[in-house]
C-alpha cells in the first residue's frame, strides 16, 4: 500500500504552487482585447434614483460603453435569484423583491451598482465613472435590525410592508403550546436578550471575474471566484442571462478563500457576462478591498430574545426563541435559509430539551445583503443556546459543567430525534466534554484566577458544547423545505491508460485542501500513489454537475461520491481482471491496488488492468466496454452532526476593559479523519474566526445606512497576536450516514468559539455583577459594563 492514505498527515499537494506564487487565480486570466469594468456604486443607503446621465462618461478616453439599469431591462436581463423560499406562519410565501443587477428607480444600500463603465483600461473606466451624473434624492433609511419592521420605519420595497420578508414559526403551533406549558410548569427560567452581530467576510483574494463570449460558438465563458461553479452557471444562466447551460462554461480556478461569501451569483459577474456578449470582447472586473466590504455578502445580524425553562433538577424543559434577522436590502441566494432551517433546527444542541419553538421575523434594511458566512445560522443558534445555559446555571446555582451533563443526549440514545426536525445519527457528548475539562485543567482554574487577581486582572473560564449539521441533505426533504437546488455531490474517477488517476469533483477547493484529501481517498482505496492522483474541480466543462463547496459538505458528500465512483472502478476492474487472469469474477478480490484470484498467488495490478482497459487487445469486448472511467452521484440520507466541547479562558484588565484569550482547548468530533493536519488547520481557522466574532469583528452602519467599518483600519480581524496557541484534541464517532464515516469540519470552530469566549468573559465579570455582554466584546464595552455594574 502506498503511503498517504486515510489517516496520514501528508503535506498539502497544492501548497507548492500557492507558496511559490504559481497559483492561477481569476485575475491571472488575461485575454487578448480585454476590456475593464468599473462599477459606479451608490453612496447612499436609500435614495430615489432619477436620471443617470452617462453622456460625458461615454465620451471619455478609452470608454467603450456605459451600462445602466434601463439598459439591463432593454436587454432582458433577469434579477439575481434567490435559491431558497420560506413560507410565513400565515401560509404566504416570503416577499421576494426583484434584485436588479443595476439599480432601477431606487438605491437601497451603499455599494449598490448604479452604472458600469467598460473601458480599455481599468484606470480609464474608473476615471470615466466620475463623469457619470446621477440624480439621487436621498430618502430616510431603515438600517437598524431591531426597528426596521416597526411602524414608522422607512419602507424599502413597495411589496414588503413594514420591511417584512417573512414571519416564520417553527416547528409550529403544537410545539409552541408545549413550550408554553413547559414555562408554566418550570421551577426555574433563564432569559437573555442578545445580539449576534453582523460580520463581514474577508477572503485573501477579493472577488473577481473575467467573461469571454465567443460569437462563433455562441458560447460564454466566465472565470470567477466561485465556491460552486455549476450552481453559478445554473443561477446566472437560467435566471439572469438567459444563456443556455450547454453554451455557458463557468470556471472557478484557484480561489483565495470563500467562507460562504463566494457561493451566491453576484451582479458584477452577470454584468460583465452581459457586456462581453454585447461587445464581443472579453471583459474583466477585479473587486477592490473597499468594494468587498460593502458587496461581499455579510453574515449573521440577529437580535434575539431567548428563554429557557428548567425543572427543579435543572433539566431543560422548554426553549423559546424570538429573533429578528436582518436580510439586508435584497435577498441573496441563500439568505432566507440561514435564519430558518440552518438555525432553528439546531436549537436542541447537544441536549434533550423536549419542547422548542421559535419565531423569526426576517426584515429588509438599507444595508448590504447577507448570506452564508462560515457556520451560517448554526453559530447564531449555538450562541444563544450556550449563553442561555450559562445564564440558567447562574439562575439555578448549578455548575455550568454539571448543568450541561444533566441535559446531554446520552451516548446510547442515538439515533436521536430532536423536537426541531433533525435526527442525530451519532454522538458521545459527555466524553468530549470530559476530555476538554481534563486537557484544559478545569480543576486548576481557581489557582490561575488567584494568580491573575494578584496581578490586578480578572480571569474567567467558559465552556461551549456546539453541535452542527453539515452536508445538508437529502435533496428530497430540502426540496420540501424550500430548496430550489439539489444537495447531492458528484465525482468522476478516471484511470488514465498508464495507471495514473484524474478525479473530477463537483466541489471546489478554496483553502480546504481537497487536492490532497481527495487524492488520499484514492490512494487509500485504489492503492495508487498520491503523486499519481490529480483532482480537478471548479470547471463546468470538465467536472460533472456538482453543487460545490459550502456548509462543510465536501468530504462527507463529495468524498462519498468519489468513494462510490471508486466502487464502480473496482467492480469493473474485477471483470477485466477476471478475463486477464482467466478466473471467475466472483473469485477476484481487490486490495491495495492489486486484483487477486482468491486463494491463489495469481495477481494483476490495477495499473495493468487500466492499461488493458484502454489498450484492449486482450479484453472481453463482447461483454464489456473499454475504458476505466466511472462517475457517481451521492445524495446522503441525512445531514451529519459534528460536535465539540470547547473551554476558553480569558483575562480581563479591569482598568481598560481589555480582554485577552489566554487558553483555548478544543475537542472536536468530526467522525473519521482523512488528513489530521488539514483538520487541525480547519479547526484553527474556525476558532480564530469565532474569536474574531466574539471579541473584534462587527459591521457598523449609521442610521442612514452608511457603513462605518469600511476598511481594515476600522474593522478588526483576529491576528496571530490576538489568538492563543490552541490546544486541540478529538474523539472519533464515525458518521453512519456516509461510506467514509466523515463529518464536516470547516465551520465548527466558528460556531463554538463565540459562546465559549463570551461565557468566559461573563464568568470573569460575574463577581462585578455583569451577567451578559454583547459581541463584539470590545475593551470599551467591558469597561462600560463594569462602570454600569459599579453604578448600580
Amino acid at each position, binding site marked *: 500500500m502506498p503511503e498517504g492514505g486515510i489517516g496520514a498527515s501528508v503535506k498539502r499537494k497544492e501548497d507548492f504552487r500557492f507558496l511559490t506564487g504559481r497559483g492561477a487565480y481569476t485575475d491571472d486570466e488575461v485575454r487578448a482585447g480585454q476590456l475593464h469594468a468599473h462599477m459606479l456604486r451608490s453612496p447612499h443607503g436609500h435614495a430615489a434614483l432619477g436620471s443617470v446621465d452617462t453622456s460625458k462618461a461615454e465620451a471619455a478616453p478609452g470608454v467603450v460603453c456605459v451600462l445602466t439599469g434601463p439598459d439591463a431591462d432593454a436587454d432582458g436581463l433577469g434579477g439575481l435569484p434567490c435559491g431558497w423560499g420560506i413560507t410565513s406562519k400565515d401560509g404566504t410565501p416570503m416577499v421576494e423583491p426583484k434584485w436588479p443587477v443595476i439599480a432601477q428607480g431606487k438605491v437601497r444600500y451603499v455599494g449598490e451598482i448604479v452604472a458600469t463603465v467598460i473601458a480599455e483600461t481599468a*484606470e480609464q473606466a*474608473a*476615471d470615466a465613472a*466620475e463623469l457619470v451624473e446621477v440624480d439621487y434624492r436621498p430618502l430616510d433609511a431603515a438600517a437598524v435590525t431591531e426597528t426596521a419592521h416597526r411602524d414608522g420605519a422607512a419602507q424599502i420595497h413597495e411589496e414588503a410592508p413594514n420591511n417584512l420578508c417573512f414571519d416564520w414559526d417553527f416547528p409550529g403551533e403544537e410545539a409552541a403550546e408545549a413550550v408554553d406549558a413547559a414555562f408554566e410548569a418550570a421551577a426555574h427560567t433563564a432569559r437573555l436578550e442578545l445580539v449576534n452581530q453582523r460580520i463581514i467576510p474577508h477572503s485573501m483574494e477579493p472577488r473577481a471575474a473575467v467573461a469571454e463570449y465567443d460569437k462563433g460558438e455562441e458560447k460564454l465563458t466566465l472565470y470567477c471566484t466561485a465556491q460552486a461553479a455549476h450552481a453559478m452557471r445554473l443561477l446566472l444562466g437560467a435566471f439572469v442571462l438567459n444563456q443556455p447551460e450547454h453554451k455557458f462554461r463557468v470556471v472557478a480556478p484557484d480561489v483565495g478563500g470563500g467562507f460562504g461569501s463566494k457561493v451566491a451569483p453576484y451582479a458584477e459577474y452577470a454584468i460583465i457576462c452581459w457586456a462581453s456578449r454585447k461587445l464581443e470582447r472579453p471583459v474583466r472586473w477585479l473587486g477592490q478591498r*473597499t468594494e468587498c466590504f460593502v458587496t461581499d455578502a455579510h453574515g449573521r445580524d440577529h437580535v434575539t430574545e431567548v428563554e429557557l425553562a428548567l425543572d427543579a433538577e435543572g433539566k431543560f424543559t422548554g426553549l423559546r426563541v424570538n429573533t429578528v434577522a436582518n436580510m439586508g436590502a435584497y435577498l441573496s441566494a441563500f439568505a432566507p435559509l440561514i435564519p430558518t432551517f440552518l438555525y432553528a433546527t439546531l436549537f436542541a444542541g447537544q441536549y434533550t430539551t423536549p419542547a422548542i419553538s421559535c419565531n423569526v421575523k426576517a426584515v429588509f434594511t438599507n444595508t448590504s445583503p447577507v448570506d452564508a458566512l462560515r457556520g451560517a445560522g448554526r453559530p447564531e443558534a449555538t450562541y444563544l443556546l450556550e449563553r442561555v445555559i450559562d445564564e440558567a446555571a447562574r439562575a439555578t446555582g448549578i455548575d455550568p459543567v454539571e448543568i450541561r451533563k444533566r441535559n446531554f443526549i446520552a451516548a446510547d440514545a442515538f439515533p436521536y430525534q430532536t423536537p426541531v426536525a433533525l435526527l442525530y445519527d451519532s454522538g458521545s457528548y459527555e466524553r468530549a466534554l470530559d476530555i476538554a475539562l481534563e486537557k484544559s485543567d478545569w480543576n486548576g482554574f481557581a489557582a490561575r484566577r488567584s494568580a491573575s487577581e494578584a496581578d490586578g486582572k480578572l480571569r474567567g473560564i467558559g465552556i461551549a458544547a456546539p453541535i452542527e449539521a453539515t452536508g445538508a441533505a437529502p435533496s428530497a426533504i430540502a426540496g420540501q423545505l424550500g430548496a430550489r437546488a439539489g444537495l447531492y455531490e458528484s465525482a468522476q474517477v478516471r484511470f488514465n491508460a498508464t495507471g495514473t488517476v484524474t478525479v473530477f469533483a463537483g466541489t471546489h477547493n478554496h483553502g480546504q485542501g481537497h487536492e490532497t484529501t481527495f487524492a488520499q481517498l484514492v490512494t487509500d482505496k485504489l492503492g495508487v500513489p498520491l503523486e499519481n492522483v490529480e483532482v480537478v474541480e471548479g470547471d463546468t466543462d470538465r467536472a460533472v454537475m456538482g453543487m460545490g463547496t459550502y456548509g462543510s459538505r465536501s468530504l462527507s458528500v463529495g468524498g462519498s461520491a468519489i468513494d462510490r465512483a471508486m466502487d464502480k472502478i473496482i467492480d469493473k476492474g474485477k471483470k477485466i481482471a477476471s478475463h486477464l487472469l482467466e478466473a471467475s469474477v466472483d473469485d477476484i478480490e481487490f486490495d491495495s491496488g492489486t486484483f487477486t484470484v482468491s486463494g491463489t498467488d495469481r495477481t494483476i495490478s490495477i495499473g495493468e488492468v487500466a492499461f488493458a482497459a484502454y489498450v484492449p487487445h486482450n479484453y472481453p469486448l463482447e461483454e464489456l466496454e473499454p475504458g476505466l472511467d466511472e462517475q457517481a452521484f451521492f445524495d446522503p440520507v441525512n445531514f451529519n452532526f459534528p460536535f465539540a466541547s470547547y473551554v476558553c479562558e480569558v483575562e480581563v484588565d479591569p*482598568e*481598560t476593559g481589555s480582554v485577552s484569550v489566554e487558553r483555548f482547548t478544543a475537542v472536536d468530533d468530526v467522525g473519521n479523519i482523512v488528513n489530521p493536519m488539514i483538520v487541525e488547520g480547519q479547526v484553527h481557522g474556525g476558532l480564530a474566526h469565532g474569536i474574531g466574532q466574539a471579541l*473584534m469583528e462587527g459591521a*457598523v452602519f449609521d442610521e442612514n445606512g452608511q457603513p*462605518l*467599518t469600511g476598511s*481594515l*483600519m*476600522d*474593522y*478588526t*480581524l483576529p491576528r496571530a497576536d*490576538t489568538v492563543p496557541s490552541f490546544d486541540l484534541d478529538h474523539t472519533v464517532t464515525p458518521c453512519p450516514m456516509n461510506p467514509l464515516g466523515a463529518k464536516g469540519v470547516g465551520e465548527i470552530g466558528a460556531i463554538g468559539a463565540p459562546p465559549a469566549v463570551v461565557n468566559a468573559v461573563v464568568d470573569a465579570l460575574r463577581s462585578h455583577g455583569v451577567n451578559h455582554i454583547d459581541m463584539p466584546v*470590545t*475593551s*470599551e464595552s467591558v*469597561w*462600560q459594563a463594569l462602570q454600569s455594574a459599579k453604578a448600580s
Partner: protein
Amino acid sequence: MYDFNYRKASSVEDAVSAVTGAEDGRFLAGGMTIIPTIKQRLANPSDLVDLAGVGGLTGISVSGNTVEIGGMARHAEVNASSEVAAAIPALARLAGGIGDPQVRNRGTIGGSIANNDPAADYPAAVVGLGATVRTNRREIAGDDFFTGMFETALEPGELVTGVSFPVPSKAAYMKFPNPASRYAIVGVFVAATSGGPRVAVTGAGPCVFRVAEMEQALAGNFAPEAVADIKIGDDDLNSDIHASAEYRAHLVTVMAKRAVAQANG
C-alpha cells in the same frame, strides 16, 4: 489612483523648488498616508516629490544630551538604533510600536509629524520630550509645531529635515492601540525633562496635547499615584466607533499612570 508626476529630488533645495513649482505638489517621504489616500482617489496631487534620494535627511546621532533624528529616518531604524535605545529607550520603543513591520520599514519621522494624524505616535514623543523640529528654514519648538488635526506650523515649501530630542532623565510611552489600525486610541508620553515633567497625549483629541495638571502633580511626586486620580475632561476629545470621549478620557489617566510606572522602571 489618479495620474501624477513623480519626481525624485536630489537635494532639499531641489525638492522644495519642485514642490513649490508644481500646481499641487506634495513631498513624498515614506508615503504611508499619501499613497493609500491617492490609491483611494481621495487625494489628487499633481506632483509627488520623492525625498528618498536627498542627502542629509537620514541618519541618527546622539551628541551630548541630544538625540538627532533625520527627517527621513524610518521607524524601524529608530527602533533598532542602539544609540536611541541607550539615550531615550521610550523613543525606540515608541517607534517599534508604530503600525506593522511594513509601515515601520517605510514610514519616516518627518512624514509622520508633518502629517500630524491625531492618532499618530510620534507627536506624543515630540511634545512629551520637548523636542525641536528642524526644517529647511528654521527651528520650531515641539510645543508649537502641532497646530490642529492634520495641521502643523509648516508653511508651503517647508520641509522637516530632522528632529532634536533632548535626553530626559526618564520617560515612557504607553499606548492603548486601536485593535484594527493599531494607531493610538490613546497614547501618553511622560518624561522627566530638565524643564520639568511633561505629559503629552495623542489619539484622544484632535491634536496632541499636554496635561498641565498631571505635569504639576508629577513635579511634586513623579509616581503613578500622583496622576492616578487626575481625570481630564472629555468635552474636546474624539468619539468614534472605537471609543467614546468618556472612555478616552478614562484611558488617558490609566495610560499616564502606567507610563509613569514604566518610566520609573
